[in-house]
């Protein structure tokens, strides 16, 4: 894996701001790296080379004029293709949005540009972010950056692979049930889901609105902190956006974990692949060695997460995806009347997994089943939130695996949707609770592929979470580098 454009986002921004490198040269290096690896990875659905060059030149012009382009000056960033970019195709890896060019930018895209970042392209994903392997893309899968016979995870697999392969130092994904953290773990990058409402969802194509959050991928905890601080913050365009000061996640990275109370969650260590479980226990030992107070804790309500999630998320999706009706944008398959046109368009435009989720959600919400399934799932969600609240009375952060195994083989889990859904079992509880969580690379599994350890925190507990993540990163560095 050759590093991009060389080095971390912090290094790139420092070099560009200091006049040692131009944003243009960094951008060209990233575009070359992408061109070289794309044939085997298929991480991108669209490379916005022209727009990236224009943006890089603007950063260089600003510097020459004596203005500071911002904390991400000249840093190439890749965006999951469910983030709206004005004039640049945004497809959600769905035939139903093929060729669509949004008339506006997502808030996170505006904030990236204002910080001097260079958007180099749009990355592959499971259609509408529904999946755990990036195999549900209408454009074909993304492949793992270390072993091309494996999946990169999903749904933000393109962003994970792009950062994992060193094509870009930073990328954004969206995390509804683990879609940033799980591919980050599988590809050996840092990946983080913020507290619900910390990052504006304006311009993120909606999947399950009560769960969706945009989050960063990065090669290091410090880079993830840098990116989070740029994209976080109140946005009047998203009514669920929190009007709360942004946690300053970058300032405590070196503070250590002395006295920190860490709960090792039984449910996130047991019943997973033994090689992954071993790494999680080693991570807990490292934190204890560094002075944290580590104890085991059972949170049995977490076991309800998978079922609750796969009722709630599809229910919300079935409503959100009603908008794809062939009227205002995207695909239309002509038919003699509107209802027939809707059916023809949706039948041709959605892939099988999206259809499954829409039908599952419609079922869970329909007369006769609402109380038995959707209503129960929402109450199960309450039980999970309460259990986590109790856990955080005893602990500052919780620790567990991010994914139940390392990267699995392409095609291995496509036959049975439920088997694929199990890939999200460790990440779902944080989405249901609206809590932040992040994955940090911590060694490799028996197959030589990366393992991710997950740090979970209560709402707006990002600062401590990053502090612990940074300690794990240092420990991993000391053990294996």
């Amino acid at each position, binding site marked *: 894996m050759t590093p991009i454009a060389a080095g971390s986002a912090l290094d790139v921004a420092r070099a560009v701001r200091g006049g040692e490198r131009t944003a243009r040269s960094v951008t060209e290096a990233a575009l070359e790296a992408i061109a070289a690896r794309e044939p085997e990875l298929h991480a991108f659905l669209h490379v916005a080379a022209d727009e990236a060059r224009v943006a890089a030149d603007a950063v260089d012009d600003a510097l020459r004029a004596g203005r500071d382009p911002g904390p991400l000056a000249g840093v190439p960033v890749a965006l999951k293709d469910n983030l709206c970019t004005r004039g640049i195709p945004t497809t959600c890896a769905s035939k139903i949005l093929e060729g669509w*060019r949004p008339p506006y930018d997502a808030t996170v895209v505006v904030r990236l540009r204002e910080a001097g970042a260079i958007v180099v392209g749009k990355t592959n994903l499971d259609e509408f972010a529904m999946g755990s392997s990036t195999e549900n893309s209408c454009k074909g899968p993304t492949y793992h950056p270390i072993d091309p016979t494996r999946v990169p995870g999903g749904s933000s697999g393109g962003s994970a692979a792009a950062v994992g392969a060193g094509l870009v130092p930073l990328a954004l994904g969206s995390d509804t049930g683990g879609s940033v953290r799980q591919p980050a773990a599988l590809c050996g990058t840092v990946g983080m889901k913020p507290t619900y409402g910390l990052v504006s969802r304006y311009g993120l194509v909606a999947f399950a609105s009560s769960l969706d959050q945009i989050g960063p991928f990065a090669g290091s905890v410090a880079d993830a902190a840098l990116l989070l601080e740029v994209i976080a913050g109140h946005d009047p365009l998203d009514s669920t956006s929190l009007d709360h000061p942004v946690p300053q996640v970058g300032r405590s990275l070196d503070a250590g974990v002395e006295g920190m109370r860490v709960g090792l969650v039984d449910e996130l260590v047991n019943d997973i692949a033994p090689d992954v479980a071993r790494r999680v226990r080693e991570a807990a030992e490292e934190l204890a060695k560094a002075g944290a107070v580590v104890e085991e804790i059972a949170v049995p309500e977490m076991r309800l997460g998978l079922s609750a999630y796969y009722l709630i998320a599809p229910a919300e999706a079935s409503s959100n995806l009603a908008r794809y009706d062939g009227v205002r*944008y995207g695909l239309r398959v002509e038919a003699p009347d509107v209802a027939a046109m809707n059916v023809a368009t949706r039948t041709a435009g959605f892939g099988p997994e999206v259809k499954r989720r829409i039908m599952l959600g419609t079922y869970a919400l*329909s007369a006769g089943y609402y109380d038995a399934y959707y209503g*129960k799932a929402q109450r199960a969600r309450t039980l999970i939130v309460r259990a986590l609240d109790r856990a955080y009375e005893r602990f500052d952060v919780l620790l567990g695996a991010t994914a139940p195994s390392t990267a699995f083989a392409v095609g291995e889990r496509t036959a049975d949707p439920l088997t694929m859904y199990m890939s999200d079992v460790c990440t779902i509880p944080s989405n249901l609770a609206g809590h932040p969580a992040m994955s940090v690379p911590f060694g490799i599994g028996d197959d030589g592929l990366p393992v991710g350890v997950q740090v979970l925190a209560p709402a707006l507990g990002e600062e401590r979470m990053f502090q612990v993540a940074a300690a794990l990163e240092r420990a991993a560095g000391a053990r294996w580098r």
Partner: protein
Amino acid sequence: MTEPPSLGRDDVAHVARLARLALGEDELETFTNQLARVIEHARDVAALDVEGVPPTTHALPVCNVLRADDPRPGLDHEEVLAAAPATEDGRFKVPRIVGEAP
């Protein structure tokens, strides 16, 4: 407690109609098998005794968010219409509506 309902072929055909999706016979069979397994798994949630537990619809408490009703520019009319499959006289154009089946 009554047994949670299971999902069968007729249910899938019904929800596909509600969701405006057309399914072939083979697809109906495959989707029924796959979705039945997911619903079967969801019995752990469906079987819960959650008497007195309130539902969580939203992760963090939010109240109604209001803003001043000030006029502001919206999206560019032409740019929005340019994305539509069909337009006429500055409006979205759709096939016949009146007379369609419900």
